[in-house]
């Protein structure tokens, strides 16, 4: 095997630097008490993936009003419906965003609200069904101008 020359050595080094920086560059760290909110809502149970479709812009220019739509698969009958949905933002000063409570009279487990996001972060939704099962979904939103004021 040929020994690496100077150029290749540089390329390798560069690659290594990139790699070590990446985890920090890959934004969205949890900076608040999101875990506590989730724990309180789920009672420590692990929610499954799926059933929820969470619609948020990939990039929000203005963190003051970010449109959020959520839709959960459910027949919404008296026997089986979506009870509560908690929405959490893990990079805001306070993790809580909203708790939506549906009933069979809602017809569809669907809602839209507008939220504030302080910085680039994950928005997490957890749905509690009438039978107690839990589902979750999350989206990362890149925020250009934060929405919590100075």
């Amino acid at each position, binding site marked *: 095997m040929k020994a690496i020359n100077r150029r290749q050595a540089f390329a390798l080094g560069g690659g290594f630097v990139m790699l070590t920086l990446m985890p920090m560059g890959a934004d969205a760290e949890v900076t608040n008490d999101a875990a506590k909110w989730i724990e309180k809502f789920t009672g420590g149970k692990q929610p499954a993936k799926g059933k929820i479709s969470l619609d948020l812009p990939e990039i929000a220019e203005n963190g003051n009003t970010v449109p959020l739509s959520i839709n959960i698969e459910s027949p919404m009958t008296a026997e089986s419906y979506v009870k509560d949905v908690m929405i959490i933002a893990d990079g*805001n000063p306070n993790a809580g965003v909203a708790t939506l409570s549906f*009933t069979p009279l809602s017809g569809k487990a669907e809602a*839209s*609200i*507008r939220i504030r996001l302080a910085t680039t972060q994950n928005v997490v939704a957890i749905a509690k069904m009438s039978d107690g099962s839990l589902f979750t979904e999350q989206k990362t939103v890149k925020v250009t101008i934060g929405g*919590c004021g*100075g």
Partner: protein
Amino acid sequence: MADKPRIKLPKEAAKGEVIQIKTLVSHVMESGQRKDAQGKTIPRKIINKFACEFNGKPVFSCGLEPAISANPYIQFDAKVDEAGTFKFSWTDDDGTVITAEEKIALKA
């Protein structure tokens, strides 16, 4: 504040139809995070609860946190099985409640 809330829903629906309701209420939704010119924190003042009921039965409700934008817009659905009245209420941190009502008829 205390402008009349804006509510949009159809005037009539077929029995069993799921309709969409859009609501918007004027409110500063002061987050409690901002500071005024003197550097003092502006106290939190938000709508912390929204609820909708139809003929006295709960349809949808929503607990709100400071992370909800000013002039909260809430859109949701409701299943209409009979003619009746939707009642909406927004509860402020200071205890005041803004209310509104909308009637809906069944399609003949």
